[in-house]
Structures are given as C-alpha cells and as structure tokens.
C-alpha cells in the first residue's frame, strides 16, 4: 500500500456521486438484462464505443478510474469498499460497460498479475484512460469448455513468435485494440504444459476479424483468423510453456465477473431490480399484471434479483476476506446464469402467443420470443454453467476430479473428436 493518506469511503462516495450526476446520463437498465438483443446497428455501436471511451477518460481525469489499481499505473489504489461505493453511485447512470469486462478483468487483471513492469506501464494507464480496449483471445472453435486445449500455434522465430490459428467468442473484437492470447508453444508435452500467453494488437496484417451472426441477428461476437501473425517475445506474458499458470488466474478473474474489485458495474442495489422491472413491464404490456399467476412470476423475479445481489455480495466479501477460496466465484456465476435463463423464460411465458408472432407496437412483448430463443446464452457465455458446476464440486467441495484422458500424453496425441480419431 502507498503511504498517501487514503480518501475515506464516504468522501469518495460524495465525490463520485457529484461527478456522476453532473457529467453522465441517466439510463434505462434493460440493457443489463438482455445484452445480446439485436437492437443497434454498426454505426450506433461505434458511437456508443466512442462515448464509452470518452466517459472512461472523464472518469480517469476525475480520479474515478482504476479504483483498485496501483497509482503508478494510473489507478487510485483504493479499496474494494470504494469500488463498491462507486458501483452503487453508478446505479441508473451510463457507465463504460464495454471497457469493464474483459478489458479491466480478466485482461488488465492478468497483466497486473503476470506482466513485466514495462508491459504494465505501457498498457494499464492506456486501459484506464480509455485508449485501449482489450479482448480475450481464449476460446477456440474446436475447444468448447476445454480452454487449456488451445490449438492456436505459436512457433518461435528468433526474437519473435509466429501465430497461426483461430479464436472465437470475442465480444466486439472489431472495435477493440488489443488481445490477450493463449497459444500452444509445445505439442510434445501434456496439454497444460505446452501453453504460452501473448498480447497483440488486433488490427494488423494477418489478423482477420470475422463477425459472427447470432440467431437473432446480433453481431457482437467475433471470430479471428490468425495467419503468420508475428509477435515479439517482449509481448509474452509469463514463461514459455508456462501459460497455464497464467491461464489459471485468468480463469479465476473471468469467474469473478461482477465480484471483481477491478470492475465498475452498477449494483442495481436500489429499491427495484432490473429483472423485476422488466418482467413487470412485460406483464403490463400483456394486460396481465394483476393476475395472481403472473404476479407469482413477478415476485419470483424480484426474489431472484435480490438473492443474486446478496449472494454476489457474500461471495465478494468471502473472497476479499479470504474466508472463501478463489473458486467460490463459480457459485455466483452459476446462480446468475440460471437466474437469467429463468427470467427470460418467465417473460416469454407471460407474453403468451405474442412470443410466437408479434407486431412492432407490442412493446416489450415484441422481444420476448427472440429473447427466449437466445435464452441459453447466459448459461454459455463466459464459461458454461457446466464448467462452473465442475469447479464448485471439485475445487470448492473437494470432490474427485473428472477423469481426463488427455493429461499425461503429448497434446498432439490427444483425440479431439470422433472424426479426427478415425
């Protein structure tokens, strides 16, 4: 910790509040419930990104960015309690959501954990002031939940590495700047022992960004194709072939999500909560808000909102005080995925026939059908709920690990599909 006198939480909160109210726009909270609705075109998306970079810069200049980052990298070096106060003050206001995850966490978090001093000084201030938006180059098309099974190849060539392969499920890589990339540098050792991590600019020759079209038309996600992309060895994070050491922390930061003290995210801690507000609006639109059966759904939604908030708070406290193991973050991830799925289902149930066919003047109802088609996204994105359950049972409860058949053999000999096998 630094020796500078620390601003107390209340003073900080007042400062944050006055900045936010004087400089930022109030927003509706729908975007929080259904992040993947296909409601913005590309121009609007780019405008939104630009505004968020601007807001991040304003926060940086106002001393409200990087609350728990060290001062020497442009942060405030304050405590999770300060971050929480900031989150509470952001409730109901615009905030630079695209710069939080994955830029601040896991990317900047991994840089903090494993980056060299040069790397940190070069990138973290640029991240905190909104200049650099980062993406995780982590998942691969063939990979599913097995992130350590990366097949993106990196081959050393003097002081450089040559990368070839494909990454997938990067949100908005087309408007982002840097990628944190897990690669395979050694195929002759077991899977976890042949990985290395690099950072690289996204917009460069040999790196093609393809926009993935989701079933509802949304194109937020991208897939990247790397062909002979050269990365200097100075942009390696962690040791050669020791990428899984980095990867383990990386996974931890990913599971932390809203619990991370590195991330600014409105708590929704006010009197109402986004899910219940949304479901209530759907019920009103359907003219059914007073039916007891529908009220049961509305009540259930508020319950899920509140229980999730309190659960995340408990986990946050547990992680902060060390009474819970790092892997307990998976408990929050599991709950939030299942709860979001349930809330989409409830809205769809309330919408009735309008979930199947609708007109534009059906208001909130008009989204219920395609939201329902996208329902599982909340249990897939950011690590599946299945993986969360594995982590909870094995790492939190200490139950025997699932048998893997790829542990003690060279990765090149691991069967990767029935077809590849035959």
């Amino acid at each position, binding site marked *: 910790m630094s020796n500078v006198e620390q601003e107390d939480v209340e003073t900080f909160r007042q400062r944050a509040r006055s900045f936010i109210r004087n400089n930022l726009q109030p927003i509706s909270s729908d975007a929080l419930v259904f992040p993947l609705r296909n409601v913005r075109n590309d121009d609007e998306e780019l405008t939104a990104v630009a505004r968020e970079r601007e807001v991040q810069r304003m926060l940086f200049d106002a001393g409200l960015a990087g609350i728990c980052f060290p001062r020497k990298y442009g942060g405030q070096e304050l405590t999770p309690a300060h971050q929480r106060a900031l989150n509470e003050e952001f409730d109901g206001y615009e905030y630079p959501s695209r710069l939080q995850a994955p830029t601040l966490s896991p990317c900047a978090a991994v840089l903090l954990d494993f980056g060299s001093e040069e790397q940190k000084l070069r990138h973290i201030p640029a991240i905190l002031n909104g200049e650099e938006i980062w993406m995780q180059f982590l*998942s691969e*098309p063939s990979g*599913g*939940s*097995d992130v350590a*099974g990366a097949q993106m190849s990196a081959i050393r060539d003097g002081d450089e590495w040559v990368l070839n392969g494909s990454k*997938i*499920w990067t949100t908005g890589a087309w408007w982002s700047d840097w990628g944190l990339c897990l690669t395979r540098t050694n195929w002759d050792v077991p899977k976890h022992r042949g990985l290395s991590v690099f950072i690289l600019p996204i917009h460069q020759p040999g790196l093609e960004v393809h926009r*993935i*079209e*989701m*079933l509802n*038309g949304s194109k937020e*996600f991208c897939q990247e194709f790397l062909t002979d992309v050269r990365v200097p060895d100075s942009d390696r994070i962690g040791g050669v072939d020791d990428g899984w050491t980095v990867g383990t922390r990386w996974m931890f930061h990913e599971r932390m999500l809203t619990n991370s003290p590195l991330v600014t995210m409105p708590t929704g801690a006010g009197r109402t909560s986004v899910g219940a507000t949304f479901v209530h609006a759907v019920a009103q639109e*359907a*003219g059914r808000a007073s039916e007891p*059966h529908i009220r049961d759904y509305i009540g259930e939604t508020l319950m899920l909102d509140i229980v999730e908030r309190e659960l995340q708070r408990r986990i946050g406290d547990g992680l902060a005080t060390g009474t819970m193991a790092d892997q307990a973050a998976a408990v929050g991830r599991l709950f939030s995925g299942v709860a979001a799925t349930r809330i989409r289902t409830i809205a769809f*149930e309330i919408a*009735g*026939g*309008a*979930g*199947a*066919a*609708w*007109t*534009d003047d059906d208001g909130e109802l*008009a989204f219920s*059908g*395609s939201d*329902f*088609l*996208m*329902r*599982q*996204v909340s*249990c*897939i*994105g950011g690590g*599946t*709920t*299945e993986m969360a*359950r594995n982590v909870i049972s094995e790492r939190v409860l200490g139950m025997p690990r*699932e*048998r*893997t*058949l*790829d*542990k003690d053999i060279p990765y090149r000999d*691991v*069967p*990767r*599909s*029935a*077809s*590849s*096998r035959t």
Partner: protein
Amino acid sequence: MLLALTDDQELFRETTSKLLGEFVPAEVLRSLQDDAIGFEAEYWRRGADLGWTSLLVGEEHGGGSLSGQGLVDLTLVAHEFGRHAAPGPLAVTNVVAATLSEAGGSQSNGVIGDLLTGRSIATWCFSEPRPHDRLDNGCLDIRVNGDEVVLNGVKRPVESGHGASHLLVSGRTGAGYSQVLVPAGASGMTLATMQSVDLTRRFSVVTFDDVRLPSSTVIGEIGCAGEQVTRQLRRVIAILCAESVGTMQAAFDMTVEWAFDRYSFGRPLASYQELKHRFADMKTWLEASHAVSDAATLAVALGEPDADELLSSAKAFIGDFGSELIQDCVQIHGGIGVTFDHDLHLFLRRHTLNRGLYGTPEEHRQRLADLVTMTESAT
C-alpha cells in the same frame, strides 16, 4: 411418430422426407428469411402432388387417405415438416380443405381443387388480438344483412395471410359461431405483416372493416358452426403437435451425434455422466411426446370422447418439455448453438412458434383443469 407404419405410410413419409431434403435444406431455409411468402410455389406444388393437401379431403372431392385415417397420415407429413423445419402452411391449408370438403356445396369445389394441386393455399383466421387472445375468446362479428354477410373485427396471427387465395374466417353471429370463406383482396380486408420467431412461416394481422360478401360464402350454417370450429381446432393442434415432435426429434438426433463426435478433455461429451443423464431425461420427454401426440391424433381422427384431454395434454406437454429439450440441446452445443449458421435454431424456432399458436401450455392446462372439474362434479 407412430412406432409402426404400414408400408404405404412408410413410403409416403420417406418420399416426403426426400422432397424436403431436396427443396428446403437448411441453407435454403436461411435464404428464405426475408422472403415475403417463405417458400417457392414449385416446392408446394410438388408436395401437393405427393398428397400433402389431400389427406383430409373426401374422395368425392379428389382427396383420400392412405390408412383410412387421413389425419394420422397427415401427421406423418407434419413430423417430417418438423424434422426439416419445412416452410408452408401445412396445418391451416389442410384444415380449411377438410372443412370445405365436409361442408359440401358445389361452389367450394374449385377452391378445393386448387388446394389439392397446390396451385393455391388457404388459411384459417381464428385467433384474435389481446384481450381476446385466449382460446375460445374471439369476438369477430359476422352479421347477416339480406343475402350478404358483413364481417367486422381483427384476426391475428393469421398464417400465410399474404399468400392465401382464400381465408376461412371464424366469427360470432350473436351467441353462435359462423364461418365465411373470404377471397383474397376482398374489399374492406387489410393485411399487416407480423414478425415471428420462425424463419419461413409468415403471419399477418387481418382487419375486417365492413367486409361484405354474398351469403354463399358462408361455410356450413350461419350461427351453427361451433362444431366445425372445434373440429378445425382439434385438427390443427394435432398437426402442430406432430410437427413439434419432429423438431424435438431433429434437435435431439443432432445433439446425440454431436455428443459422440465432440471430445472434451480427450473424451467424447457422450461419456460425461451429467450429460448422459440429461440425454436420458430428453429421451424420456421425447418418447412421451411421441406417445401423447400419436394418441391425441388417433383420438381426434376417431372422434373419441377423450380427444380434448389428450390434445390439451399433448399441446401442454410438448410445448413445455419440448422447449426444455431443445434449449438443452442448445446448451450442450455451447456458443455455436446460438449462431445463425448453425441448424439448431431452425428447430427451436419452429417449436417455439407452434408452442405459442392455438393455446400456450398454460392455456391448455387451464382447459385440462376444466375437464377435471367437469368430471369430478359429474361423479
């Protein structure tokens, strides 16, 4: 689908499946996303040649079934439609054709003939907008005025409203039901396009503003069409259920295959116990859906007294458990399963659409509860 088909039925199912595979593979479905009608005329004519639209029509009108139970035969087509997420107003065209054939009257002969050859399609205007959107809650007014009938009201969603040559409109004449066969382009009738979860099925809001037609367009007796409407509703639900079971079967088969092919941590997904148990649940829901769908279809075909409780059980069960089944298929596929280029959503869409038409699971549970109350107070 039925466990045991006759040779005729199996041939028919197979020919249908082949035609669908040829005319409307997944890439074609995706390309039809923005098509106003949702299918090519040639496709529908070829299907009609196979018999898609003639199974519920009497032989005197040129129709005929394979097995003596045309509805049972038709659900074989519907099942294949589900397995291919195929386009076209299968349920409504058949239901209208059946009613026209049963109602007799020579002026329908031409319409029936065109439906049988696939030259034209027909649709049924049944559901209405909120607050009249629940089953049996419609209020479109059909008034007799001399030798004319006058229609006022709104119907939605109406399937293939834009492509249909004729719309069979159900409405009220006082306390009774009437049905009128309205030709496309009738004066006072306006159509507005709706959006839907499905890629190729099209729906409209159809508004009737003092639509005047000769009394000869009335199908059956004015004010006495209640049984006709009930029969149509039963048939359309049976067809939709069979189609939905087809979507479940397709999603399930794809996902089983995926689970065998895809490896994670050096093992096929199919070797993970937690997934295996989910597949066991899905298999159970799938078999149960086949079972109740087939039983309901047969009961409707034979006019059994328990047809309604079987139908509502089928619609409610297939709606709810089918959603869970297909969504779990999505979950097991992971991110790829929610992309536009993957085929899974074609089945999720069709299932979701059918779930919402002609009574949601919730509405059918309410109908089942009514049946329990009736039975219990009778005993």
